[in-house]
């Protein structure tokens, strides 16, 4: 009796963590393979893919769980990237490139990990300060409000010469986002995101996504849950930004702006915005597609035939592929479900209860 209850408790735990394990294990295996065998160019691709995974998961924590699309999340990334960059550039360097920097920051040079955590904290405080009015809006209101927020952040970053260097590129950031570093951060982010979505607050938020009025009628304070998710999600976006700066070694306001932001939203929707697995799948698939197309579009030669690259072809093909995916699978590649690993325990001959499906598929009212 005792053993069976222990078993079922073990099973319950396994069901609880299976989806996130199912994401972390393949990622780690892929990284191990790349670390052991792949040439540097492939390693770089893996690093950028994991950067995208972090950004898309950050976006998912708010928009995926709440069903409220935000277009401004990349703004959190931009702030995070600049904060982390400013904290880690060596003081001597800062005297040269940013002579007007306030002295409190000018003499600081933190280790990368500390700087990342400070960056997350700063952006979380920023999100906490401005977020509440935004999450109370309905319909497309939050979408437009976050877009406006992104514009404001962008204008400030591009013009505040004393601190950000203005429109010119901020250089001299230590390049230390290596494959093991970003893998570790990715695992941390996935665990945080998963812990949040299975927490009480996360489940309330998902309930409000499925049916706003029903959730309110059972006493869920939807705005409050959205507010919590926004803060966590902003912190993850900031981490992504910090890692991004430390991967490129330089920052400019234009790189962390609408184009990257839209790409993030697109990745999430392509993968399936209603589940963490969907966010990760979308980031990996779209990154891989982009990279494959880039290599192909860079021009290649078949025998004596030289095919030269034409600007724009890569993007056109990518856009067509994405449209096909969206038309064929409007709920995304994963259909909004989490990876279900509970069959693994059934292989050992135990018939456990079916795993509950955390991301219920929405029943849509067709409008045609």
């Amino acid at each position, binding site marked *: 009796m005792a053993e069976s209850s222990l078993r079922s408790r073990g099973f319950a735990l396994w069901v609880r963590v299976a989806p996130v394990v199912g994401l972390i294990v393949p990622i780690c295996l892929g990284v191990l393979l790349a670390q052991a065998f792949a040439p540097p160019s492939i390693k770089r691709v893996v690093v950028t893919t994991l950067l995208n995974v972090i950004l898309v998961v950050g976006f998912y924590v708010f928009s995926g769980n709440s069903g409220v699309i935000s277009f401004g999340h990349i703004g959190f990334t931009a702030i995070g990237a600049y904060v982390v960059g400013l904290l880690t550039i060596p003081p001597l360097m800062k005297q040269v490139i940013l002579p007007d920097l306030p002295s409190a920051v000018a003499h600081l040079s933190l280790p990368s990990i500390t700087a990342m955590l400070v960056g997350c904290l700063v952006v979380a405080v920023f999100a906490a300060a401005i977020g509440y009015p935004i999450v109370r809006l309905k319909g497309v209101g939050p979408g437009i409000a976050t877009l406006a927020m992104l514009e404001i952040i962008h204008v400030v970053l591009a013009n505040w010469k004393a601190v950000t260097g203005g429109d010119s590129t901020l250089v001299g950031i230590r390049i230390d986002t290596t494959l093991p570093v970003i893998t570790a951060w990715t695992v941390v982010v996935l665990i945080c995101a998963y812990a949040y979505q299975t927490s009480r607050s996360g489940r309330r938020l998902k309930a409000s996504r499925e049916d706003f009025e029903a959730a309110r009628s059972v006493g869920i304070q939807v705005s409050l849950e959205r507010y919590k998710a926004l803060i966590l999600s902003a912190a993850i976006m900031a981490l992504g930004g910090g890692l991004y700066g430390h991967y490129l070694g330089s920052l400019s306001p234009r790189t962390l702006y*609408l184009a990257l932001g839209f790409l993030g939203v*697109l990745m999430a929707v392509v993968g399936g915005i209603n589940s963490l697995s969907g966010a990760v799948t979308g980031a990996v698939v779209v990154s891989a597609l982009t990279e494959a197309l880039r290599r192909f579009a860079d021009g290649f030669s078949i025998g004596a035939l030289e095919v030269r690259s034409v600007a724009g072809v890569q*993007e056109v093909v990518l856009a067509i592929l994405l449209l096909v995916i969206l038309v064929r699978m*409007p709920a995304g590649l994963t259909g909004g479900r989490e990876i279900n690993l509970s069959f693994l325990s059934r292989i050992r001959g135990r018939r456990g209860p079916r795993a509950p499906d955390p991301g219920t598929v929405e029943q849509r009212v067709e409008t045609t």
Partner: protein
Amino acid sequence: MMTILQYFVDAVALGCLFALAAIGVGIVFGVMRLANFAHGEFIMIGAYALLMFSSLPWEITWLLALCFVALVAVLTERVAFRWLRSADSSTLLVSSFAVSILLQNAVVIAFRSRPRAVPLPAFVGESLDILGLRLPVVSLLAIVLAVVCVAALVVFFKRTSLGLQMRAAAEDFRMAQLLGTRANRVVAAAFAISGILACAVSILITARSGTVSPTMGLTPVLFAFVAVTIGGLGNLVGSAVGGFLVGFITIAMQAVLPPGLSSYMDAFTFLAVIAILIFRPQGLLPSIAVEERV
């Protein structure tokens, strides 16, 4: 006094431009619940159409460009959005990003990404002087185009059967269908109109700047989205009002901000937008149809 009047004229002209862009976005949103991000690309393609046909007399150039953009808009709906009509609004919006990337880069392939100059009819650069008030032809053009378009739209919505069907579809798409409205015709018509309005905006923007580039659609479509939202979604009058308001806010910021802060102008404009949204979450003129019944 004169300067205030001058600012007022500028604000009305800019407001007309934003209102045209906003109505174009709003009309498609009304029938399809699609916030069409590719509208910016319609504007950009309109500008390139003006460049393509620029060897002809300007009246014919403009007419051809209008038809061309309407055609592109209808084709876009036919090829991409028709398959997504039952998708939810976030999927629709994201597919409009994809369409926007597609159209933008198709233009990059055809014309390269460098900005190009557009030949303009000579009268566009002139300005009239009335009692010390400077009236650039560009501003007059904006006002005339806006008045013509809005008048045509009013006639269309009030006097034609298709207009009536479109209003019905905007109110309740399924009910309209049950009563015999053809969904494909109404949606195609909405896209055609939004294409024509987009091209009117292209005429105004190229008349102001004289250049075209593949990314020129981004700023107007952002402002149009903002205008549609603060005006009240699903309400065309609201969209127009929102467009005017954004124009007025922009000019007011230009007038009021000290020189040191003028590079932050857009930031203040968007701050004002957020403020409006916070105090009027449903927009200034909310439509009843958008609020879902429980």
